[in-house]
Structures are given as C-alpha cells and as structure tokens.
C-alpha cells in the first residue's frame, strides 16, 4: 500500500491532523507577529505615504504582505515541523507515516493564506476608499485579471512561505536553518531579478519566487509595469509551493513509490511550463505609465 493512499478511515484522520496543524499555525507567535507587522505597515503606508493623488505605487504593495507574513511563516512552519519531530520515536511508531504527517503540515499554510488574502482585501478596499491617481497601474489602466493576479500573489506567497517552512523543517536540522533559508530566499529573489528588470529580457526574471511586476514611482513620475504574464506567474508560484510539499514528503523513504515519483515529475514539469508561459505571454515589454505630476522628483 502506498503511504499516500489513505485507508478508508484515513480521509477523516487526515482532516483531523490538518485541522490540528492549521490551528497550531494560527496560534504560533512568529506567524502572529508577521501578520501584525504586515497590517501595521500597510496601515502606516496608507496614512503616511498617501498624497493628494491617492495611494502611490499600489501594485507594489502586495510585496509588504508577502515580506512580513510570508517570510515569518517560513520560520513558523519550520518550527512547527521540527517541534513534533522531537517526539518522533513515539509518533513514528503510530500507524500514520511521516508522509501523512507532512501532508497534514501543509495545512499549516491555510492561516497564512487567509491572512494574505485578508491583507489583499484590505489593500483593495483601502485603495478604493482613499483613491489612486488615474495614471496609476490599477483597475482602469490594466486589465482586471492582471491586477487581481498581482494582488493575489500576496496570499499565494504566504501559503508558499508555510510550505517552504515545512520543507525546511523536514530536511534541515541545524539550529537557525529557517532563518538561513529566509535570508537565502531574499538574496535569490533580489539577485535573480534585479539585473534583468531594466533590460529587454526582463520577462525571464519570473523564475524567482517573488517576481516584481511594478517598479514603484520613477523619478519622472511614471511607473513601470514589468513584462510577463502575472496570471501564469501566480500558477508558477502555486507550483513552487506544490514542489515544496512533495520535496518535504520525499524525506519519507517509504513514500517514494512509483506513483509518487511520477507526481513529483508532473509537478516539476508544471512548474517549468508555467514559468515559460509566464515569461513568454502577457505583457511582452516593460510599460511606463503616464507621469503622475505630484510624483515627479525634485
């Protein structure tokens, strides 16, 4: 029997484990701190940075949620994963396999996803209430699907943060591993795309786990929308999360069945395909908005 094929009563058991893991994440102080910071910073941005034209650089704001909630979630999920493994000798001699425990841990991504979604809703509602400059890349200047795709990158990144944390907790046992992973994630994200942003090949930056689609305000008052297909990129982000889950499950040798290997290959193939689609479709080139007079530097 594959360790991933649950017995008749297994679905209920898996749901119960998933609920426990989701509840643990929802109560985890590191995660709660990240959520608090994310919403406080968003609120401060609305209050302190908004000018007469409205909320500036709106489409770059999902990054705040991804940064504060998503990155702290990496640490929280890694700690959750390691914390039950201290009792491994007892839990490993129960019928549930490590693969099932890992799959249940993936449910710890639900609270961060919900928090990221709430962040995105607050962002959209806040911007609707406060207003934006008519030149701003937002609803009206961009197709709705593109705006929604970029806004929803926040909850997906928060979900991915949890899944990356589970992967980290399963494979990296040294103290501070999750902090090292967070730093590595930031470095890879910055170095992997910054050199490409202003070039004619900017669409190939979308291999990184958080691709920028918006530069913020430029000195001449314009804003640059960077090339690529944000909807496909959203799918790529989800595929990265799925890869993190199967990578974490791979830690359990008993789970490495032929079917599971095929699943890993399929997820990896989907990630590559979505990356290629994200890079080759959608906006072909970087696009500058009309200048917003109040944002012209100097």
């Amino acid at each position, binding site marked *: *029997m594959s360790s991933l094929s649950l017995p008749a009563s297994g679905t209920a058991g898996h749901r119960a484990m998933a609920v426990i893991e989701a509840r643990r994440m929802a109560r985890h102080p590191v995660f709660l701190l990240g959520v608090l910071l994310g919403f406080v910073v968003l609120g401060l941005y609305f209050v302190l940075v908004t000018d007469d034209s409205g909320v500036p650089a709106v489409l770059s704001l999902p990054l705040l949620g991804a940064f504060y909630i998503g990155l702290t979630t990496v640490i929280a999920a890694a700690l959750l994963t390691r914390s039950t493994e201290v*009792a491994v000798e007892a839990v490993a*001699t129960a019928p549930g396999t490590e693969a099932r425990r890992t799959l249940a841990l993936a449910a710890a991504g639900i609270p961060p996803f919900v928090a990221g979604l709430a962040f995105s809703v607050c962002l959209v509602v806040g911007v609707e209430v406060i207003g934006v400059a008519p030149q701003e890349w937002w609803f009206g200047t961009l197709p709705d699907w593109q705006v929604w795709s970029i806004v929803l990158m926040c909850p997906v990144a928060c979900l991915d943060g949890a899944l990356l944390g589970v992967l980290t907790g399963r494979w990296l046992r040294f103290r501070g591993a999750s902090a090292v992973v967070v730093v590595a994630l930031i470095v890879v994200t910055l170095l992997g795309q910054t050199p490409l942003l202003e070039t004619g090949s900017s669409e190939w930056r979308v291999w990184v786990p958080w691709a920028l689609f918006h530069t913020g305000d430029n000195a001449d008052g314009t804003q640059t929308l960077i090339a690529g297909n944000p909807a496909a990129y959203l799918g790529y982000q989800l595929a990265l999360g799925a890869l993190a889950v199967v990578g974490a499950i791979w830690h359990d040798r008993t789970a490495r069945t032929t079917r599971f290997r095929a699943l890993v290959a399929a997820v990896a193939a989907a990630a590559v395909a979505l990356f290629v689609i994200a890079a080759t479709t959608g906006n072909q080139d970087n696009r500058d908005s009309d200048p917003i007079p109040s944002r012209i530097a100097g």
Partner: protein
Amino acid sequence: MTSIELSGVGKTYGRTHALADVDLTFDRGVTGLLGPNGAGKTTLLRIVATSIAADRGEVRLLGRDPHRSHADVTAVRRELGYLPQELGYPSDMTAFGFIEYVAVLKEWNDRGRRSQEVRRALEAVGLADQATVRISRLSGGQRRRVGLAQALLGDPQLLVLDEPTTGLDPAQRADLRRTLSVLGHRSTVLLSTHQTEDVAALCERVVVLAGGTVRFDGAVTDLVATAVGRVWLADEPGGDALVSWRTGTGRHHVVGGTPPAGADPAEPTLEDAYLLMLGPDADRVLERP
C-alpha cells in the same frame, strides 16, 4: 497466539553488540526487563516497538513480521503503545493537544470518541487537571506521564514502556502499577526499569539482560529464590560480600560472599537476587537448583 516472538535476534551498533542471539517469547501479562546500563534493554524494546529493525534473527509481533510490508507494520502499530526512554515534547502543545495529536496518528478519527479517549488516557496517568497546560510548563514527572498517556491510548495489545517510572513519585508509581496490572490481564506489557521494586510489585515474569544476552528469564519468585541463603544480616560488613551496607537498624545487609561471624540469614529481595545475578558469581547462582 504468542504476542511477541524473538528468535536469534541480534543488533549491532558499530562494533558494539547491543543484542546477541536473543530468543524470547511474550504473551499476555506484565514482564519486567532488568539489566545494567548498556545491557540491551532499550534496543530490545525499540525492536519490539518497530522503531528499529533487528540486524539478525526473526521478529514476529502479533503473528506478523513487521518488516515484511508496510501493511504488516501498520497492523502491528495499530495495536501498539510505546513509551520511549527519552521522549521529546512539542513545546507549543498542551498535554491534551499532544495526546490528541498522537490519537489522530493512531487513527482515532471520530472527534467525540477521540476527545473521550484522550481524557481517559490523561485520567489514567493522573493528569486530567493539567490537560490544558502547555507541556513546556509541566514538571519532568508530569511530562513523563504525558508520554505514558500517549502510550496507553486505545488500550493497546502490546504495551512497550522504557523506564516508565522515571521521575514519578511513590504515589504516581503506585497509580501506574494499578493501571498496568489491569492492562496486563488483556495485553502484553513489556517494561524496562532500574527499579527492582516495580518489577517485584507488578511483574509475574522478569528477564535479566546483560551484555546483550539473556541472563535470566522466569518468574520473579524464581529469581528471588536464586538468592536464598546468600543474604544475611550481620553486625559487620561482609569481607568478600558482593555488596553490603549498614541499614537503619544498625546491622549490615550482606549480599553474596561468605557470611560474617554471627550473621543471620535474611529474606532476599528481588534486588539482592538481581545483584547476585550480575555479580562475578552469577554462573554459580544460575547453577543452583
């Protein structure tokens, strides 16, 4: 059906033979494993608990070879309760939360029945009133009882307890004895301990391990009988005694060796017999009728 069958079981860590050709069978009832540190007790219990595999020999648990297939080991684990010697605890969980987590792993899927079973297990170890306290705030003894509670979930057919009484006070130990004696009527309980009085009070059978081999396997009374005539109360410590100490009455309890002058024969305890079993005259002890 014999619950546990071990034949020719061996386990080696590097150059150390933790277990060497052990042949044992266990059925319903409570069996105590005694032996010095490094005797192989924990290795034996971990093999029975399906935590590790033996390098050699045959292991059958509840009629199954746990390493034949995933289905076999899962079937065994459904009937297994295991308290490891050193069990870590998730610091963010309450006692109830941790036991519930293990209960879910043990396939207690119905929420109502699961909660009821978790409460029962916590009550069995006297922790019902600490159920909502984080494990990190519990004392060492209380944590040990949390570990016991997870092992007791579902009244398992096989209960494997590695030093279950460590950190328990006398009243808690008495409670545990009561719980295990009830379980022993319908389950196979295998426990290791350094507390000979726990074995004397609880177990009908005792296995003494030393150097990875079985030195004694039989009834507790039979082990005690091996020490008859080799324990004395004397005014002086025994010169060549295996061990002797001054008791509260002022007389010396002398185990082994030759009786000091004026010594009175004393009723041996299980501890006396155990010490003699592991002493240099062990072979002579075993040869006695």
